[in-house]
């Protein structure tokens, strides 16, 4: 079954491309200290250096900082925030969705109204408010993004649980005297992993975008070089020095594109019926 899955995934060229892009971004993030041992905040050359001038691959910004170094170190921040906030959001979403879907009734009503509360407030506004209240730092940004992202996942998991709950294998588990926690985590959850994985991979992309937007507004972690911050700080000189915005912006675009392609590929691979349609 696993080999089939890999085959299906590998047949989707877009997904393989996405995997390659994201793989490259991860490599750059891991190797940032080797490639650019100096701090990305330090001056490395003359300000407003064009790309490839003075040995600077992507040029320098208004303060003479190396943009290539910033992009490499920014990859760390973006990926870290993307992954951490997604993990947190998945944990909240799966737990609430599972409980709501499994128990149903009043508890379900209550949890779903609570979920809707988060769904009705525009994501970005809420993130800005939360980060503004708890001074910007990596932790507060991760918490804020996780808080706004879990709601759709909770609904998804609830739906899966609602339909799986009445399956005979779950009823068999009940008649075998298994406890609720065992049934939720051992019986039902493994059966709805595929939609969770798919939406989580897409959530990483959204989280990276949210983080970039925050940094663009100046609400990023002031100690961490990030893509959004670079785009934001360079926007005033966009017409004189295009490269300052272009490279970090392009990094965001590529990473998000790669993650979306992976998500789509996973979706097709997990869902054999769609897979066949695509082929026809």
């Amino acid at each position, binding site marked *: 079954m696993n080999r089939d899955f890999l085959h299906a995934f590998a047949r989707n060229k877009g997904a393989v491309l996405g995997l390659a892009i994201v793989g490259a971004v991860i490599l750059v993030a891991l190797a940032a200290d080797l490639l650019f041992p100096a701090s990305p905040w330090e001056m490395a050359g003359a300000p407003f250096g064009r790309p490839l001038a003075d040995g600077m691959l992507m040029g320098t910004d208004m303060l003479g900082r190396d943009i290539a170094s910033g992009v490499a170190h920014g990859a760390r921040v973006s990926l870290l925030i993307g992954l951490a906030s997604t993990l947190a959001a998945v944990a909240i979403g799966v737990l609430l969705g599972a409980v709501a879907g499994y128990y149903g009734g009043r508890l379900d009503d209550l949890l779903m109204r609570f979920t809707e509360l988060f769904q009705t407030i525009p994501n970005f506004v809420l993130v800005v408010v939360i980060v503004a209240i708890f001074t910007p730092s990596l932790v507060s940004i991760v918490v804020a993004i996780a808080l706004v992202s879990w709601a759709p996942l909770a609904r998804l998991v609830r739906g899966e649980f609602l339909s799986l709950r009445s*399956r005979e*294998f779950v*009823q068999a*588990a009940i*008649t*075998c*005297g*298994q406890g609720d926690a065992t049934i939720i985590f051992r019986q039902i959850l493994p059966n709805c992993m595929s939609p969770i994985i798919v939406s989580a991979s897409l959530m990483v992309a959204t989280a990276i975008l949210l983080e970039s937007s925050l940094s663009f507004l100046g609400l990023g972690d002031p100690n961490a070089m990030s893509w959004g911050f670079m785009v934001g700080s360079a926007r005033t000189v966009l017409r004189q020095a295009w490269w300052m915005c272009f490279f970090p912006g392009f990094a965001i675009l590529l990473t998000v594109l790669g993650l979306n392609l992976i998500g789509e590929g996973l979706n097709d691979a997990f869902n054999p019926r769609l897979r066949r349609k695509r082929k026809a």
Partner: protein
Amino acid sequence: MSETPEIAEPAAPLLEIRGLTVALPEGGDRAFAVEKIDYVLNPDEILCVVGESGSGKSVTAHAIMGLLPKPDLRIAAGGILFKGRNVVTMAEAEQRRLRGHRIAMIFQEPMTALNPLMRIGAQIEEALEIHTDLGKAARAARVVEMLAAVGLPNPEEIRKSYPFRLSGGQRQRVMIAMALALKPDILIADEPTTALDVTTQKQILDLIKAIQRERRMAVLFITHDFGVVAEIADRVAVMRHGRIVELGAAEQVLNRPSHPYTRALIGALPHGRPADKPAFAPAAAPILAARDVHKVYRVAGTRVGGRRELVVSDHVNLDIHPGETVGLVGESGSGKSTLARTIVGLVKPDGGRIDFAGADLVALDREGFRPYRRHVQMVFQDPYASLNPRHTVGDIVAQGPVAYGTPRAEARARAAELLRLVGLEDSAVARYPHEFSGGQRQRISIARALAMEPKLLIADEPVSALDASVQAQVLKLLAEIKERLGLAMLFITHDLRIAAEICDTVGVMKLGKLVEIGPAAEVFGSPRHPYTRALLDAIPGQGWAPPQDHGGS
């Protein structure tokens, strides 16, 4: 209407299947869905194609109708001749003219075969509009005529209603009306009664037979049930693994089958006679006594605020003694499964009591129920849904005892032992459910129930999803295990033939009520309730006694 007797000499065949071979996609378990199939369909006859699932019986019909899923299945060789002209090589447009017009088809699932958003009349008219140049009024008149012909009450009203207002049997009648609207030469019926209750099945079979006789149509009837074959077939083709193993007149195939596979199939049929064992005499007090159990589902009505009440358990009383097999029979919606689920604690009844081992199960909460739970185990209907696809078979069987505190290693050793007991290989422990066939999965399900060392085993339609030959094996296994472990069993089935064969006591349920209960021989031999009689009358193939001498045991 006075019918002239059978036409003396056989007319030219209407439909000829010549060496038809349909290829399966590469990498399947066999290369061809059907291989070198030959048969003819004559005017004015019912040809039954019988076989188990995967025998390729439907594929041929679908090939005739051009319904093969492209590009997975394709006709690799052979031809389908309709009045001497090859359908396979015909242009697409010509094929379309043939389909629906000269050859019509009805399907198994009446609930999904009709478009839910179109009125019945419009759906039947559609074919008339495409294939004829009748005017609007003439079309409406034809629709009413057809609906009346298939025995629907109030055809004018049904013409204007939507499918959701009709029952399954009525929808199947509509499907037949739709198929007949163009007065086709051939009617292909693909398991048209499999999804229906016995009494409805009988009506539909009678209808198809009557219409065939009246219109002298040719009917190609696909089924897995030899009872149905005995009921309507003129000729029979038996299929296995994509080939026809036996073809001949119904009387001959049914009573003097020549191929060993046909013999085995007929031998595996539940014969529907109560076993010749002595009547069950309870030696001890009942292990389970249900008293006055009732349950009502409140269904949201179609109109705002309107609520419908669905009585699924209407003050039911039931005793099960140690070592006794109690059968519950009834049609869908009669509440037999609900009663079973109430006993294992999956459904909470509205009232009544169920006494088991000195406690009233209904009054217990989930924690209180736990100690009793392991003594009442259930085998579920659907072998494909009742095993968690993500767990190994060993885990599935061991899970119950582990939940009750048995050390994991010990539970797994016991699981292996049980899997052997139900006739699976040792390697089964480490494999996943999808690697097993339906019958094997049902064995796993039985092993899982046995792992809890139950005193009462509840089997909810345990064989209804299985082919006849596998059915017989699983039933045999259940009977053996019951005997060996001295279990009491509650056996739920819609198939009266099976109930007659394996149950000591039989209860008949209708609309939540237990209308009759008694020793199997008595209930089947001299039924007291009219509903029991109706059910028994509806069993297909009653006029036929399967030859017993060459039963393939």
